């Protein structure tokens, strides 16, 4: 099995808060991340791809248009339709990237989306596949 890992970066602002909860409840669950003014991260994406040879440029173009083009320099809660109701936690952003790319990168197969939110925390999503 040969896997390719490609790395990308974007910067975005977000608030961790559910619109259907009041501020006190959001503060209780999400802490300082619930500040309504928002805060930002320099995110890094690592895509693990299988079943591909020489697909790098095509994948880069798809990621550029559909992921980086949608997320970079945006306030995720306000500017990205998917996050109007879904809280843009690292977990949910990783799932968004997975759902956006899974079919689009064919014939390459997406094996993992790793999203690094800060130097101290990251998530890895494998879709419906069992966690290795």
């Amino acid at each position: 099995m040969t896997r390719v890992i490609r790395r990308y970066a974007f910067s975005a602002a977000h608030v961790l808060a559910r619109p259907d909860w009041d501020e006190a409840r959001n503060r209780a669950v999400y802490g300082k991340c619930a500040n309504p003014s928002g805060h930002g991260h320099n995110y890094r994406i690592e895509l693990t791809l299988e079943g591909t040879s020489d697909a790098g440029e095509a994948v880069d173009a798809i990621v550029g248009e559909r992921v980086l083009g949608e997320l970079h320099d945006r306030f995720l809660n306000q500017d990205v339709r998917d996050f109007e109701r879904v809280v843009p936690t690292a977990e949910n952003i990783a799932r968004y990237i997975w759902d956006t790319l899974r079919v689009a990168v064919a014939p390459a197969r997406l094996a993992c989306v790793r999203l690094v939110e800060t130097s101290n925390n990251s998530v890895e999503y494998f879709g419906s596949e069992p966690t290795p």
Partner: protein
Amino acid sequence: MLITRRLEFSASYRDRKGATHGHNWELEVTLSGPVDAETGMVIDLKDLKEVMEREVEARFDHRSLNDDTPYFRERAPTPEGFAELIFGLLDAALPKGVLHRIRLSPTDDVTIEVQR
């Protein structure tokens, strides 16, 4: 979904030959679980941070593993043994079964991985 939090701490140890090693250890703790449908999170990272500070940082930061902790009285520390000890301490402190893997790096060039 896997979620990983990182911690750095400093600790020294004497190996079985009597040589003393000091490192800035880098620890990556990875939990596995479903994303909670209500919060959008696997776990509150504040809770994981508190467990890591209590179970690892408070026990080992700026300590000698031989002299200042009770874990290496019978056998000399090794990075592998230290990693297995940390896995056990975290596994006992976290909700059952959520700890997936730890990676412990004594230097940039060496990483020990312990996976369930």
